[in-house]
């Protein structure tokens, strides 16, 4: 038993729903009690989908238990076929139905429905949403995709995009355009917008583009083994990764590299206006794929300092740990957002790149934040075109990450005139419109003082300090430092004091530390 307040991932059957909802002509019969239909609203509300997810829930009740839940399932499956006439069906159990062991796969098979029926076995008490999506897509591919002749021209399949994915829809458009510049056309994109008939003709492609290892790695490996289709290993998020991806495609296909078009990010990062971004301390958390990509962009393309990173999906722990090592860091692999919050509070970054969960942590701690990964929120489905992948994705990411920060010249002005009654740092970046009240002076203490959090003591653990105290005049001086660097200044000073064996920080200690860390 594990006490959980908020979760990064839903149960595995929600992953299966992400695949089913992304596809067309597929129907999911889910053995589940009343209430599990809540998952529909994730799709209709967060993603603003204009159709219900293609899911039939058996809706068993207490009085059905021990009576005839199996027949309930059979009626639901038969009814769903008659009403929706799908090309193929997937059948499975939610967490409660898993316990009553009705065997939806066997029951559905006995119905002899006139379409392929693919049973799913998703262990609800040990696995989670991403596993559910990956496993579901793999099972569909395993049953439906067959060997066949390759297309004459060079084609690929785009695999991995699902419903409720972070910018999946726009990534597909961007990659399709990017590949076209090399002369590669897309044979099938799946699961997003694919029909079961499309899955059946995946074998015609020359190779697979694995867009999101979270949801399609098992399928990619299966297709490599059974159909001899190589798959791309680089996820093209960021300028460097996109170039590496194109090189990888060139190596697989023997085609020439295309001319780069539409890429503005490198010049935007190089222009003098971006100088203020140098060395800003960022913390990165999300799914493994987006975190690895974000760390590379942050460190190599924008010039931030990555001070911590981690992911919530254990399946990606190994590559995330390896990526962290290249920045001299130890990755945090956890699905407990309180641990992430404590880590962020300890590190005091100047920018958080995270999920919607980190956005809330950031709000609480008064730290700027940009969202880079699922779990998603209605805001992660903007009306405008905003991919993460390819060159346009690199442009979008640059804008998105810079937006939460105070801009360069404004940063200087705040430093110079920080006591101005209108133009003070609590007013927030001037390009952000109406701003709430002043941000808390000492976010760490603030979170602990709220007294409401059941893990409160984890939040109040002072980071580096040990026995170091701040003298009153030094503390006042610290408050004169603009908020966006105050966390760093405090942390550096305390570390400096601790290293020197100083127990009371004076104004001199503060400026000695500043001189020590100058670069």
């Amino acid at each position: 038993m594990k006490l959980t307040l908020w979760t990064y991932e839903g149960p595995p059957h929600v992953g299966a729903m992400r695949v089913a909802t992304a596809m067309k002509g597929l129907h999911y019969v889910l053995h589940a009690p009343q209430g599990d239909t809540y998952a529909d609203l994730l799709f209709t509300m967060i993603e603003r989908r204009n159709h219900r997810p293609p899911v039939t829930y058996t809706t068993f009740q207490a009085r059905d238990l021990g009576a005839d839940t199996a027949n309930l399932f059979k009626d639901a499956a038969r009814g769903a076929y008659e009403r929706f006439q799908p090309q193929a069906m997937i059948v499975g159990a939610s967490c409660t139905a898993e316990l009553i062991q009705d065997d939806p796969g066997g029951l559905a098979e006995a119905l002899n429905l006139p379409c392929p029926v693919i049973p799913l076995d998703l262990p609800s008490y040990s696995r989670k949403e991403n596993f559910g999506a990956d496993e579901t897509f793999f099972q569909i591919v395993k049953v439906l995709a067959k060997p066949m002749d390759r297309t004459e021209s060079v084609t690929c399949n785009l695999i991995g995009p699902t419903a409720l994915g972070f910018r999946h829809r726009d990534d597909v458009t961007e990659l399709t355009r990017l590949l076209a510049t090399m002369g590669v056309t897309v044979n099938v994109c799946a699961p997003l917008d694919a029909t079961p008939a499309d899955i059946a003709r995946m074998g015609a492609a020359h190779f697979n583009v694995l867009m999101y290892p979270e949801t399609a790695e098992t399928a990619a490996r299966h297709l490599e083994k059974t159909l001899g289709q190589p798959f791309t290993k680089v996820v093209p998020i960021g300028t460097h990764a996109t170039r590496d991806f194109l090189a990888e495609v060139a190596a697989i296909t023997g085609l020439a590299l295309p001319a780069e078009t539409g890429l503005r990010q490198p010049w935007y990062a190089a222009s003098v206006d971006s100088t203020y971004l140098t060395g800003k301390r960022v913390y990165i958390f999300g799914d493994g794929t987006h975190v690895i990509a974000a760390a590379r962009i942050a460190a190599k393309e924008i010039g931030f300092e990555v001070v911590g990173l981690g992911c919530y999906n254990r399946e990606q722990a190994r590559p995330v740990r390896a990526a962290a090592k290249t920045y001299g860091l130890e990755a945090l692999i956890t699905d407990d957002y309180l641990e992430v919050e404590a880590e962020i509070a300890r590190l005091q970054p100047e920018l958080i790149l995270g999920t919607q969960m980190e956005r809330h942590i950031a709000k609480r701690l008064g730290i700027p934040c940009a969202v880079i990964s699922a779990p998603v929120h209605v805001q992660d489905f903007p009306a405008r075109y905003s991919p993460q992948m390819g060159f346009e994705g690199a442009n979008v990411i640059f804008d998105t990450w810079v937006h939460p920060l105070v801009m360069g010249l404004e940063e200087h002005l705040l430093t110079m005139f920080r006591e101005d009654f209108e133009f003070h740092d609590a007013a927030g970046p001037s390009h952000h419109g109406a701003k709430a009240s002043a941000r808390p002076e000492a976010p760490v203490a603030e979170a602990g003082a709220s007294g409401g959090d059941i893990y409160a003591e984890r939040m109040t653990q002072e980071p580096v300090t040990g026995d170091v105290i701040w003298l009153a005049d030094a503390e006042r001086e610290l408050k004169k430092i603009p908020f966006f660097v105050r966390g760093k200044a405090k942390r550096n000073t305390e570390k400096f004091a601790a290293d020197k064996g100083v127990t009371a920080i004076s104004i001199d200690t503060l400026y000695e530390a500043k001189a020590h860390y100058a670069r």
Partner: protein
Amino acid sequence: MSLDTQFRSCTDTPVLKERGQREVFCGLTGIIWLHRKMQDAFFLVVGSRTCAHLLQAAAGVMIFAEPRFGTAILEEKDLAGLADANAELDREVARLLARRPDIKQLFLVGSCPSEVIKIDLSRAAERLDGIHAPHVRVLNFSGSGIETTFTEGEDACLESMVPALPATDAAELLVVGALPDVVEDQMLSLLAAMGAGPVRTLPARRSTELPAVGANTRFILVQPFLGATHAALIKRGAKPISAPFPFGEEGSTLWFHAVADALGLDRAKVDAVLAAPRARAQKSVAAVAETLRGKSIFFFPDSQLEIPLARFLARECGMLPVEVGTPYLHRELMAPELALLPHGPMISEGQDVELQLDRARAARADLTVCGLGLANPLEAEGLTTKWAIELVFTPVHFYEQAADLAGLFARPLRRHALLTPEAAE
């Protein structure tokens, strides 16, 4: 509209009972408002990742800050042996209470998986109560989808509190059902002015303010979904006051009148107290009703508020209900409402969502009230919809909120007219 001889109500309307896929929340969802209402209570769901995900999806981001609820997620090893699960539960509760000394009431909330594997939460609550009393009182109820539909979670929670309430012989009025604090304060001040005191509420904001109950207690519901709590209070000897529910000017007035009659209050004094808020409510509802008059409305089942709301919309706003779906129809509690609801609509209980969608598409009502899973798909089909859940999360009871309640239904219609002027007459 008065009860003249011409009036035909829905009292004898046959009810369509359906059984099939239900597009509704389970009772766990009630925790979202109950944990805010009871400020020293913590709700610990013993369930699966699905339960935690549901609460998160239903709560959205509104209350990220400090949830006084959590889920003890069952893992593979808990399913292997029950003794293990109990020990794990004791450990999690001890940790929780050590960290939250402000918690005075702990609810162990049963879920679909905990019920299917038969974790006995009532025994667990007794055991834990023995350990943590008197500082913390531990109770249990089921919010599982196999037992409860959406608002029935609140019913199960309040029902679990009734046997533990202290006994009293005092003649007190007990108002039952969670209301937003501002609405509760309005109600209490009107009741006090009428001379109805002393008045207690269930749930109370804090465990120290819990009501006592006994043979001289008169109680009245403010929410229509509290059938089990109603029965539990009668079992404690309390006497119910039957009334329509306090939605709209008429519903609120009939509700206060029922209290006044039961307590033998002076009607002239009562009417004097109610006169000003009644007039305000009539005036403000009339303004909103201009948008609603003559428009048809179709209710999918959601919260058991459907019949009282249809009554309000039909009688005070001139709307024409086509179908009024309710997840469960409590005949006794609904009798005063059905007697007021004008004959005409189909009344349905339970749900087969595909069949009901067929009916909704055929009816093409001017406004369709449904859950969040159905709203956008129906909008995409050209129907105008109202999210049902907003009716539970918004202050809508009594006089000062009557126009707000009407406004919740008027807004989608006004919006539709704004965005598609060519469609408006």
